[in-house]
């Protein structure tokens, strides 16, 4: 067929490439030829455009098995393959056994990496399970409120209420009727947990216990999956006097859950309640912790509130649109608000299961929280695994001098590149399998320690199928990543050159591996910096002077008989004279964690005209600042060892002090803008008085927040608060016995329950402590693993330079010379890593420290320390091998030529 051939018009290049890619080689020539011929024929007949389309269509058309299937090559039939596989395995095992040190380093490195990964995985899984176990989880939402006031935006999970007609009314109480998408709604009172809250006392017969619990609406037990084992979940919280209790509580009082139903319990020696339901003990994965639930109506009308903080949870219908519901809820809310209110409140919905991980608010929307730790640790896990894989690559490549001859022979005999790649990948997977076994054993051994470490109760998940799938995936992933570079590299070697004995690495390959080492050290140094900063900050928090002496302080809640003024005075009088007790006094709040703040714009303020709780001389109208008020006894300053900046302490000798005297802290003076505070008037609620003294600032709450304005007055008759006792140093036991004796005599209906202030203070930083401990471990691991990698590099370097070292020794080089020669390069690597790691670590830690109002400086020595430590460890590792290389007899290394 005569077709004129115009070389300018060509079929689409990509289609040609595609054809070349898929078409079996033995058919390619004729098919390509036919397609080209047809193409030029079509160009003539229908034009270039049509021809191209037709060409593409043809290429697609040939994508059929007959064209793709490769011609079977003569050799591999399946039994032959099996032989080869067996042979590969034998070779792998022989290599393992022959180079024991290498194999041990490899497997240990990988196993450490995997162990880390598994632990972090377990932790992350556990974190994600929190609040995520409810059957209705998909449709459960937390209501959060955003408050706009004075140009500030604040958001939290609390629910606004107003005091009207002598009772407290929740603003969105009726929203369920107004928004049809809300299927269930429940309120839940928070603030009954420690440290701010307190346990409450129950009595049945002569059994007397303190337990922590809360109050919730009728729907609570049906919305959430806290399984009810006796009684009816739907009606359990319906009646005013109903109480639902946990299995634990039922067993404490009534032996079995079944016996508890219908029984009566005395609550706080004040009310008689009837047990209507027993629920299974609240699982560890629930953020709400309670051993009992009381009726909500009871809470609103007749119970003592620990705080005004209440949560609202809703269950929406499956088809509900969140935004619509939010809009409807807000419309309902606005109708309830007084027009004169100075604040603007808006409601939002957050999926209930997110509340644990995403509990911080930024600009009035949920954003960040523990999820950041989860992400960071997931990142760390991946990094550590990658570091371990990099080691494997480094060590395997280092050893390639030894394996190269094998590769050469295999290639000469006829092995294809793909089967070599397969072989080396297979070996890597075998190694990672061994490492996995080691790491599983490690996980099993270390799990109890890990649990105490993190304060979790994770069980070994060996039984579930999904965890096996994940383990297999982890093994394959590690094997592939670790084995990829050696496999590609070794299989690319040219047999002629290897067998001639020329084994040279391209600069690129060397750089690549040095880059890997730098990468590892960057991570190690960053982790070191993190560790140092976190542990320094933790110790700063623990040892910083708080402005008071927190040692030897015990506090007891004021309740029962102690709420009465005369009984309190009797207690104070008797206890102070008992052995071991130095001083006794009181405060309306535990002094290390004062949670009560007034006059902050939290949405509870009624109107602008409504008098603010705290006022002072020269106060501007509408000015508001977050005051912490506290009412104490006369000896409070003495018992706490507080310092006075100006003025005088409260005194029993001054008759007006119990009614007229206030003390404020320096921060309050500063924020109120007073020049000369002594003698100026201030008022708290209905009590008006004068400032008699200024306290030096001291920390009334965790160091995450700055010191707030404080206002102190004397109210020894207050019916709530804590009794503080200072014990004589070293006599804690006597003091406790004394206090218990006096307590039992005065307050027999309540069990004696006490807290050590310094221990409670440390609990405020439990999260930080966990992170500190975890990062310690990870830093050590990262350094260890990086050193294994470095060891690989130096072994390789020494092996490459065996002859050079031999010649140098013959010519008179000392061991020191040679060690320096080998170590020099690695010092450079560590130095480069340091230059990269220091700013990264510094930036990360600055971010973290910004979460504290009181923090350490990022001192230069922290960086020097981290860099120096990394360098020392690196030098130690390197010299280990370098000295061995330098000590070998040159005769051995030189005679082979």
């Amino acid at each position, binding site marked *: *067929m005569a*077709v004129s*051939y115009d070389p300018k018009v060509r079929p689409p290049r990509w289609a040609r490439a595609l054809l070349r890619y898929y078409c079996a080689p033995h*058919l390619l*020539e*004729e*098919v*390509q*030829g*036919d*397609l*080209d*011929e*047809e193409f*030029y*024929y079509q160009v003539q007949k229908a034009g270039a455009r049509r021809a191209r389309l037709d060409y593409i*269509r*043809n290429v697609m*058309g*040939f994508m*059929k098995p*007959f*064209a793709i299937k490769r011609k079977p090559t003569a050799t591999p039939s399946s039994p032959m393959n099996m032989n080869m596989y067996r042979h590969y395995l034998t070779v792998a095992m022989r290599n393992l056994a022959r180079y024991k040190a290498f194999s041990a380093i490899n497997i240990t490195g990988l196993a450490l990496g995997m162990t880390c990964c598994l632990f972090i995985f377990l932790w992350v899984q556990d974190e994600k399970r929190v609040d995520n176990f409810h059957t209705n989880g998909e449709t459960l939402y937390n209501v959060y409120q955003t408050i706009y006031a004075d140009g500030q935006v604040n958001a939290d999970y609390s629910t606004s209420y107003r005091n009207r007609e002598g009772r407290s009314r929740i603003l969105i109480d009726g929203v369920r009727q107004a928004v049809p998408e809300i299927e269930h709604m429940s309120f839940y009172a928070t603030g009954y947990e420690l440290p701010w809250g307190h346990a409450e006392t129950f009595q049945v017969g002569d059994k007397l216990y303190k337990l922590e619990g809360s109050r919730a609406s009728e729907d609570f037990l049906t919305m959430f999956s806290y399984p009810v084992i006796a009684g009816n979940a739907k009606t359990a919280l319906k009646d005013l006097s109903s109480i639902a209790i946990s299995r634990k509580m039922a067993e404490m009082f009534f032996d079995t859950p079944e016996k508890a139903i219908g029984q009566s319990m005395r609550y706080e020696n004040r009310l008689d309640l009837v047990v209507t339901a027993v629920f299974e003990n609240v699982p560890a994965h629930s953020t709400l912790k309670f051993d009992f639930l009381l009726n909500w109506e009871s809470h609103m009308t007749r119970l003592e509130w620990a705080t005004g903080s209440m949560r609202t949870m809703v269950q929406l219908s499956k088809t509900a649109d969140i935004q619509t519901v939010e809009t409807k809820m807000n419309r309902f809310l606005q109708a309830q608000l007084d027009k004169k209110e100075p604040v603007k409140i808006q409601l939002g919905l957050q999926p209930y299961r997110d509340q644990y991980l995403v509990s911080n608010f930024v600009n009035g929307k949920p954003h960040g929280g523990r999820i950041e730790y989860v992400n960071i640790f997931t990142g760390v896990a991946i990094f550590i695994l990658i570091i371990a894989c990099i080691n494997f690559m480094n060590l395997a490549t280092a050893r390639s001098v030894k394996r190269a001859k094998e590769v050469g022979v295999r290639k000469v005999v006829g092995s294809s590149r793909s089967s070599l790649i397969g072989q080396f990948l297979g070996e890597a997977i075998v190694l990672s399998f061994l490492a996995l076994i080691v790491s599983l054993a490690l996980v099993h051994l270390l799990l109890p320690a890990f649990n105490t470490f993190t304060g979790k109760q994770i069980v070994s998940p060996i039984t579930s199928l999904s965890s096996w799938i994940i383990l297999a995936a982890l093994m394959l992933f590690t094997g592939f990543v670790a084995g990829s570079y050696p496999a590609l590299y070794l299989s690319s070697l040219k047999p002629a050159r290897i067998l001639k004995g020329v084994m040279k690495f391209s600069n690129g390959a060397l750089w690549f591996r040095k880059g890997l080492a730098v990468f590892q050290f960057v991570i190690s140094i960053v982790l070191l910096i993190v560790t140092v900063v976190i542990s320094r900050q933790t110790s700063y928090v623990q040892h910083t002077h708080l402005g008071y002496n927190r040692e030897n302080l015990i506090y007891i809640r004021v309740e029962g008989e102690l709420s009465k003024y005369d009984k309190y005075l009797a207690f104070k009088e008797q206890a102070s004279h008992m052995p071991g007790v130095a001083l006794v006094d009181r405060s309306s709040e535990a002094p290390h964690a004062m949670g009560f703040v007034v006059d902050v714009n939290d949405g509870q303020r009624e109107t602008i005209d409504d008098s603010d709780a705290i006022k002072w001389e020269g106060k501007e109208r509408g000015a508001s600042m977050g005051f912490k008020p506290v009412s104490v006894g006369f000896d409070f300053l003495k018992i706490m060892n507080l310092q006075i900046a100006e003025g005088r302490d409260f005194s029993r000798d001054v008759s007006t002090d119990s009614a007229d005297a206030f003390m404020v802290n320096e921060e309050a003076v500063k924020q109120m803008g007073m020049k000369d505070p002594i003698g100026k008037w201030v008022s708290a609620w209905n009590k008006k008085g004068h400032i008699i003294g200024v306290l030096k600032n001291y920390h009334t709450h965790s160091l995450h927040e700055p010191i707030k304005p404080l206002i102190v007055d004397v109210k020894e008759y207050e019916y709530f608060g804590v009794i503080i006792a200072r014990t004589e140093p070293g006599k804690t036991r006597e003091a406790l016995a004394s206090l218990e004796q006096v307590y039992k005599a005065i307050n027999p209906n309540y069990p004696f329950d006490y807290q050590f202030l310094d221990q409670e203070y440390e609990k405020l930083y439990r999260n930080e402590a966990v992170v500190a401990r975890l990062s310690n471990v990870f830093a050590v691991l990262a350094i260890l693993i990086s050193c294994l990698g470095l060891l690989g590099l130096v072994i390789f370097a020494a092996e490459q330079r065996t002859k050079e070292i031999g010649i140098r020794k013959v010519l008179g080089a000392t061991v020191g010379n040679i060690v320096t020669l080998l170590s020099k390069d690695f010092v450079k690597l560590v130095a480069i890593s340091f230059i990269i790691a220091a700013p990264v670590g510094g930036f990360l830690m600055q971010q973290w420290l910004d979460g504290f109002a009181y923090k350490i400086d990022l001192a230069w020595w922290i960086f020097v320390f981290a860099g120096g430590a990394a360098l020392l460890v690196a030098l130690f590792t390197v010299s280990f091998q370098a000295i061995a290389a330098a000590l070998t007899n040159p005769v051995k290394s030189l005679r082979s030529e």
Partner: protein
Amino acid sequence: MKRAYLGEFEELVLLTVAVLSANAYGVAITHEIIQQTGRSARLNQVHAALQRLEDKGMVTSKMGDPTAERGGRRKRLFSISAYGQQTLNDIQAVRNHMWSLLPNAN
């Protein structure tokens, strides 16, 4: 079954190979089928059929000479084998026989 099964399209391709005798290769066969029967045929179908026919031993092939319009590539030239010829004859014989049995033929 005594003889190998031959699909309708395969039969057509086999016939075309026989018709084109010395010059039977992919493009030529495709164009011939299009011209002579008026039906559409695509290269890949023809190639697939040719391969099946070769597997069945009804055609044999050898590589021809390179030409410019094929980008200097050679073509695979097909010729009908004795067995292929025999099969075509058999089919024809069966058909003729059947036609002759048709009562109202012609």
